[in-house]
């Protein structure tokens, strides 16, 4: 809850780089990872994205390592399933007494997926940690995404932070009065928190209507988009990097673990 990536995006070392370029690099990297037939290219992407995040964007190492653990729990479970159910190739391991076998095909697929998830997540982190949401919205607006969608996302953004602050305070107040002690009380406390938050949400909504009306709301919520300069070196570096990744993808496509 205290790890909203956007907070880091506001102050990171790549803050001044054109947001469109950052978004382009991130999404292109993701697509490269998802379509890579072998694990090497995604691993290259995750290494270079992590390097960019840590060295260029100057995100604290401790924070970034904790971040990397988020996908692990999902990946561990799902990849375990794939490891056991995927057929093909030699049997590598049999669990005695259980109908569970790991085949070379399963191992290869699991390794590939793991690489893709890490490559994809690192690219996603790159976008999230270097590009503030407001700038992403600005790009969506320029790409002619329906205005009602951008407006709704924009208003949601603002209220996420207001409600998170409130939720955090309510939670703290409950803990100070010894809430969340045993399991039953935890559920009870959490229910109260959610209920109070709902009520607060409703009040915020009504206050928001009032505030918008007071400022002559006429159905327009545009961001003041100005054409941003884009440095030729940055574009060249980005293209070079993506070409390198593509090259690795093509040359190592057939490569498997086993």
């Amino acid at each position, binding site marked *: *809850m205290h*790890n*909203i*990536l*956007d907070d880091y995006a506001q102050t990171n070392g790549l803050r001044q780089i054109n947001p469109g370029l950052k978004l382009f690099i991130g999404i292109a990297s*993701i*697509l490269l*990872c*998802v379509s890579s037939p072998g694990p090497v290219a*995604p691993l290259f992407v995750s290494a270079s994205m992590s390097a960019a995040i840590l060295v260029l964007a100057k995100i604290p190492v401790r924070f970034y390592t904790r971040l990397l653990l*988020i*996908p692990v*729990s*999902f*990946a561990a*479970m*799902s990849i*375990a*399933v794939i490891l056991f*159910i*995927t057929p093909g190739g030699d049997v590598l391991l049999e669990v005695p007494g259980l109908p569970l076998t790991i085949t070379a095909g399963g191992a290869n*697929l699991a390794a590939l*997926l793991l690489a*893709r998830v890490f490559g*994809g*997540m690192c*690219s*996603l982190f790159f976008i*999230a940690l270097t590009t503030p*949401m407001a700038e*992403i919205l600005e790009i969506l607006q320029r790409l002619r995404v329906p205005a*009602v*969608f951008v*407006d709704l996302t924009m*208003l*949601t953004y*603002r209220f*996420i932070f207001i*409600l998170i602050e409130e*939720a955090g305070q309510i939670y703290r107040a409950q803990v100070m009065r010894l809430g969340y002690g045993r399991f039953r009380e*935890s*559920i009870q*406390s*959490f*229910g*109260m*928190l*959610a*209920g*109070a*938050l*709902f*009520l607060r*949400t409703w009040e915020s*909504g009504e206050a*928001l*209507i009032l505030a*918008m009306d007071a400022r002559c*709301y006429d*159905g327009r919520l545009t961001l003041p988009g100005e054409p941003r300069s884009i440095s030729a070196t940055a574009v060249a570096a980005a293209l070079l990097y993506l070409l390198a990744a593509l090259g690795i993808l093509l040359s190592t496509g057939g490569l498997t673990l086993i």
Partner: protein
Amino acid sequence: MHIMEGFLPSPWWEIWFLVSLPFIVIGLYQLDRLVKEKREALPLLAVAGAFVFVLSSLKLPSFNGSCSHPTGTGLGGILFGPCIAAVLGLIVLIFQAVFLAHGGITTLGANVFSMGIAGPAVAYLIYKAGTRAGANTYATVFLAAALADLVTYVVTSIQLALAFPAATGFFEAFSAFAAIFAVTQVPLAIVEGAVIALVFKYIVQL
């Protein structure tokens, strides 16, 4: 239950985008009309979206992360209709991906379908059925919330099984995914049902 970035291979992530797209398009169309008619709908939907996001980012007791938005957006579904709820789900999922690293961009289509469309639809149907049958409100809410959660994870399991079928076919893969997620998801669904029922009770009391 978010599918992580990079997990769904082609063509499955594209397929799920195509499946979710009509709901989103219709939702956007309806939303546009609604906002033009009633300007106050926009701020209310925005705070509802923020609420769902914040609730899902809080740690449920003894579990790490929850996915309360099937029910959260289900609530949106009751108020504004299922397609608008899908748009709300999409927005929440984008924020979860970019703010919390839950989910991803290519998997957005699949996640929107399981959490923004299937889950809320179930919550919506059970709630409607329950109130029509005159069942106990809290029981109905509990059931709607818990089942919406379960449906979400069943759909996720289907999505994964389709993408990664086992040697003996889709059903074996599905049961494998469903079984392993059940360990975490069934208790979560029950807790979530209980919490949402409590919230409902709380709101009614006020």
